[in-house]
């Protein structure tokens, strides 16, 4: 169990704390997923895993950091869960579905080959019995091990509210007897889509924080990337999983250049392309090609393909806009969303000019699903500005400013408004692409 070949000197407190923190970041999902299988409910599993991490602090200081911290933590957490289950006299009667009533599990040896249950955990957290926000919150809590307080900050609710929401979600899973398993082939596409949507939601929530000062909440973005990587490793044959990972990598490659030194938002056209993360772009590009080779590309692979064309273009003007329009057409076919159609209009403006694009945007303005979506008036304003219709452009910028919640985006739009106000005629510029 101990770190073989280690010196006799016990590790320092700092080393142990670092090892436990690393194991928390890297192994939490694995440990919790394996513990949930024997614990039978998520509350007990969570409690046991937390105790195991606490126990690691003293045990590892005494005995050294084990070679396989994940296995040590899992064995410890499972033992703690089983102790509780044994104490519950009604073990058999109450045995909920998550438990595999297997006698051998009750005499768990210290070193046991632990099956990788992380996918079961993810699919259970993203089960359709839960609403999207509950799925996202539960995934952060159980799969990523994020504290309830931090999740509350992400979703901009008070901590007790989030605690109640997570408890309710866990109760719901227990009450409805949601099975602890990976869905079968027939239902997999639909269920996988829910999982990918949750990961994407976490990423976009971090990427453009809906309110507040920082444009990017780096921690949440990293969690989402980590989840996407984990899914890609666990489901190597699913092209849409690769597509999602590619999309996140390609979008995130631009993270450092999305704002200037003062934290002001920069449009894609104005970003310093030399500052983009080439390694992430290359990896994303490879994943996109893989996903396309697998057959008819899904919506994440298509979005990633669009992002990769942006990432590879030498400049905004020299981007392969006709190909981007074609990819948007394919994307609309797979995913008929007005937001997709709105983004397509921006690409159309680069191919066919702002007049054609404006007609598309005006038609989309009728869609009630886009009411309150500040990108619509913002894009409209840019197109009007390019057509020299500055009075109307100013009006559209003001409409966008009224709808936006993020400070960086509000400052950006206010600057744009300043340029089109009568008396400050500026040169026509390409529109905004996030």
């Amino acid at each position: 169990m101990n770190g073989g070949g280690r010196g006799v000197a016990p590790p320092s407190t700092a080393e142990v704390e670092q090892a436990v923190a690393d194991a928390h970041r890297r192994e939490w999902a694995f440990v919790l997923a394996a513990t949930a299988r024997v614990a039978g409910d998520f509350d007990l599993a969570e409690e046991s895993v937390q105790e195991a991490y606490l126990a690691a602090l003293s045990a590892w200081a005494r005995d050294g950091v084990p070679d396989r911290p994940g296995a040590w933590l899992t064995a410890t957490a499972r033992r703690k869960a089983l102790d509780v289950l044994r104490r519950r006299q009604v073990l058999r009667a109450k045995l909920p579905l998550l438990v595999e009533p297997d006698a051998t599990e009750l005499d768990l040896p210290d070193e046991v080959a632990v099956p990788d249950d992380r996918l079961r955990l993810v699919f259970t957290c993203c089960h359709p019995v839960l609403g999207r926000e509950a799925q996202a919150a539960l995934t952060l809590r159980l799969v990523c091990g994020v504290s309830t307080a931090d999740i509350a900050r992400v979703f901009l609710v008070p901590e007790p509210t989030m605690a109640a929401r997570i408890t309710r979600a866990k109760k719901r899973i227990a009450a409805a007897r949601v099975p602890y398993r990976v869905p079968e082939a027939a239902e997999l596409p639909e269920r996988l889509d829910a999982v990918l949507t949750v990961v994407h939601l976490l990423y976009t929530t971090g990427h453009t924080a809906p309110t507040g000062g920082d444009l990017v909440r780096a921690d949440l973005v990293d969690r989402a990337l980590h989840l996407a990587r984990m899914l890609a490793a666990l489901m190597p044959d699913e092209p849409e999983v690769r597509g999602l990972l590619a999309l996140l990598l390609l979008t995130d490659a631009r993270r450092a250049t999305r704002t200037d030194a003062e934290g002001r938002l920069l449009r894609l056209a104005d970003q310093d392309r030399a500052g983009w993360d080439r390694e992430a772009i290359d990896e994303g590009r490879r994943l996109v090609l893989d996903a396309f080779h697998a057959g008819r590309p899904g919506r994440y692979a298509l979005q990633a393909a669009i992002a990769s064309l942006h990432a590879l273009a030498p400049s905004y003007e020299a981007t392969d806009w006709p190909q981007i329009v074609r990819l948007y057409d394919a994307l609309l076919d797979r995913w008929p969303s007005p937001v997709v159609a709105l983004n397509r209009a921006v690409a159309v403006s680069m191919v066919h000019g702002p007049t054609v694009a404006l007609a598309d945007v005006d038609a989309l303005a009728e869609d009630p699903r886009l009411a309150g979506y500040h990108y619509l008036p913002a894009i409209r304003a840019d197109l009007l500005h390019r057509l020299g219709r500055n009075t109307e452009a100013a009006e559209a910028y003001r409409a966008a400013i009224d709808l936006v919640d993020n400070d960086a985006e509000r400052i950006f739009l206010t600057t744009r408004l300043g340029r089109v106000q009568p008396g400050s005629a500026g040169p026509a510029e390409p529109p905004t692409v996030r």
Partner: protein
Amino acid sequence: MAQYAVLIFSPAPADPMDLTPDYVALLDRYPGQVEELGGKIVTGFALQPSTTATAVRGDLVTDGPFIEAKEVVAGFFILEAPDLDTAVQIAKLNPATIDGGVEVRPLFTPPVE
């Protein structure tokens, strides 16, 4: 096995006497399909049409169902199934889903604490 109530919603007034022969034929097949999927119907009931409903809210008594809904409760059954996913799979095969819908609800059991 867990127990679920499966609530059947059909276009108002959901008169069981007006069921088409096709629908009845589908209903006849249903218990067999339920068993094939590993479930069991414990008990089930069809209701008189919604025109016979009497609704009470507070001290207000009205005839008819609660809201002017296009779909009304037509019946319900208690289903035993190993888990929610199986129960939903079974519910999806119910002929009511063709022109109405079904709702799957786990039965409440008080916590043993």
